[in-house]
């Protein structure tokens, strides 16, 4: 593209080149992140898992009427992997392990996306308000956050889910209630730090409103650690979610890894390892992959931060 000169202010030209610059930068950033082999490995696993989740209906025929329930084959109870029609075997109650593994990815993706979206939104909003306003607002909000943080997250989530009753929806709700405080903390610290920068004063000096200062100067410069934490939490939330459903806080027979591990655990001592191992492996891979990616993103975006 030819250089746009100052004498011909074409409407599209300036915007287009800005867009190009932005795309180039995103590409550079992606290249930097993927230059690390472990990060790349993490991303490959994530792409595989997410692909599996999205394509589940085409890989394994959905159970009807409720696709998120594992189908029961009462004619093939606890058959080993490789049996006809049951590639990864079945559970003690005839649940198809392959179905649980693949549709479980869908459940996990749904769980982690919903919870991360809610917690990031709430946490960023609360943390920003506390950090940007400071004073009494900060004091009140952070004491609330402290209350939430004083209870171990797994036990807290367990308590909430137990009170609300056993269902997967309540697990989502419980995790959302527990996890937002982390983001509020991170965001508050970031905002308090960023708002002391001179460019915030400089924006104030040209007469910008508080909202515009927050949106253009504070938010973009403080969001990085939140992005990193959100990536890590995509893994952690599935881990905690699987724990809760393992304990029995999800509907019985749900196509979910924790439920499947729970169903298979009684068979392990009898040598029927498959029903627990495959979903367990999936949880492990999922959490590992997001942790690798999160660390990789942190190394590129936020080189100063030590591993927490």
């Amino acid at each position, binding site marked *: 593209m030819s250089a746009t000169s100052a004498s011909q202010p074409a409407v599209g030209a300036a915007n287009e080149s800005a867009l190009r610059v932005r795309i180039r930068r995103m590409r550079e950033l992606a290249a930097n992140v993927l230059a690390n082999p472990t990060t790349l490995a993490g991303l490959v696993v994530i792409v595989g898992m997410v692909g599996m989740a999205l394509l589940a209906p085409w890989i394994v025929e959905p159970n009807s009427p409720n696709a998120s329930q594992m189908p029961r084959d009462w004619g093939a109870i606890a058959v080993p992997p490789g049996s006809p029609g049951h590639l990864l075997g079945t559970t003690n109650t005839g649940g198809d392990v392959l179905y649980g593994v693949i549709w479980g990815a869908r459940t996990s993706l749904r769980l982690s996306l919903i919870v991360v979206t809610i917690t990031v939104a709430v946490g960023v909003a609360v943390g920003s308000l506390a950090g940007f306003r400071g004073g009494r607002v900060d004091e009140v909000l952070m004491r609330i956050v402290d209350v939430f943080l004083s209870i171990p997250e797994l036990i807290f989530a367990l308590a909430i889910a137990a009170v609300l009753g056993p269902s997967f929806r309540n697990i989502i709700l419980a995790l959302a209630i527990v996890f937002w405080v982390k983001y509020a903390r991170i965001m508050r610290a970031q905002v308090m730090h960023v708002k002391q920068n001179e460019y915030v004063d400089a924006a104030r000096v040209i007469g910008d409103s508080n909202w515009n200062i927050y949106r*253009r100067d504070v938010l973009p410069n403080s969001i990085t650690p939140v992005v990193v934490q959100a990536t890590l939490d995509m893994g952690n939330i599935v881990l905690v979610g699987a724990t809760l459903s393992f304990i029995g806080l999800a509907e019985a027979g749900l196509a979910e890894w924790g439920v499947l591990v729970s169903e298979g655990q009684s068979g392990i001592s009898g040598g029927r390892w498959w029903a627990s191992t495959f979903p367990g492996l999936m949880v492990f891979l999922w959490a590992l992959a997001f942790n690798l990616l999160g660390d990789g993103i942190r190394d590129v975006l936020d080189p100063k931060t030590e591993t927490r």
Partner: protein
Amino acid sequence: MTTAPIEAPKTTAPVVASVRDLRVHFKTKAGIVQAVDGVDFDVRDGETLGLVGETGCGKSVTARSFLRLVPMPPGIAVSGSIMFRPRMRCSSCDGAGCSICGNTGRVVSICPACSGAGCDTCEQTGAETVDLLTVPERELRAIRGNRIAMIFQDPGKALNPALTIGKQVAEVFYAHRSDELLTSAGIDPASESLQNYVLRRRASQESRTPENLVLSLPPLRTRRNAISAAADAMVAAALNETQIPNPRAVMDRYPHELSGGMKQRVMIAQALACDPDLLIADEPTTALDVTVQARIIELINELQERHKTAVVYISHDLSLVRKVADRTAVMYAGRIVEVGESDQIFHDPEHPYTRGLIDAIPGASHERGRLAAIEGTVPELIDPEPSCRFSGRCAYAEQVCRSEDPQLEPIDHRQVACFIHHPPDHGVAPTFARTEQ
């Protein structure tokens, strides 16, 4: 402007801003620090006022008070007043400069309370007067960047690293020139239609997500883009004025891709974009290479001449202030000790501290060897007793200097706060003679 009338001497020009008894206190663990402790000075139209002093003497805090930028906390109280008299474009010459406006292109805006007759709010001057320390936040925002602008010390820190130069400079136009943006985008700013309401909000950067969504849809999209293009054109013109080569390309750059000098040019472009009455330059060249310094100073001077802007130039570099400032105010430990014409102050300093400062400038005429320095250190400003703040380091100090506050009082065309020049009612008055014998 071929028939330039004889310009009135700058020292008698009308006052743009007058600072009276400005006090800024900070709360620290050790106690309350009186960082600025009763500062008085005037800034006159079109002049450059140099504000000099050592690090920590309160010059930056004073400057920041103009735009209410003193952080609270740790700041706990700002008192006194900073009266600002905003000026308007002269209607008879439309800013070109004529005899009515004294060739400045601007006239004093009339006090709305008394329509120029003179009342208490305008201190009988008839000119619109705003106390920058008490004006409501909303009105202050209309002044910031528009009537008063500021340049910061380190341009590397004063630019948002996450925004392109073009977007950052455009902010100032969105904040203060939305009507012009609309007009040049072919939209009538006065029209009351719903469409225009949204576009108007966009042009002043008040539109929120739902409105932005509407604006990104085809019917309004081209108009939205026209507003952005108008802003871009204004930004390019502003950057061009500070001699940035190829402004359109620079606008797509991020701050870290520019050199320090370029960044400072961007800051200056943004500061002068709305043609302010007063520019506060807080050590604008301290963070730059010496070779770039000279060019930035030239640029500020040149633009000041063109825009007829008053400049408060803060620096600890005396030789620099001597060159750029019409008048100089010397600050020490939160107070002004001497203020007057720069030539006079630098040739014939009257306050012992000013003398010490000027002697401490290493010059080519000095012989090699030890550099001159003022003995002692700046006193702590935690709950100070009444005294001349400099008495601890002053070679001429007498008892009275340690127990009473010297006031800033006039002597031949300047003001000095020292008992040598206006002896106290009682006690032994200090004189320069004592150690000069």
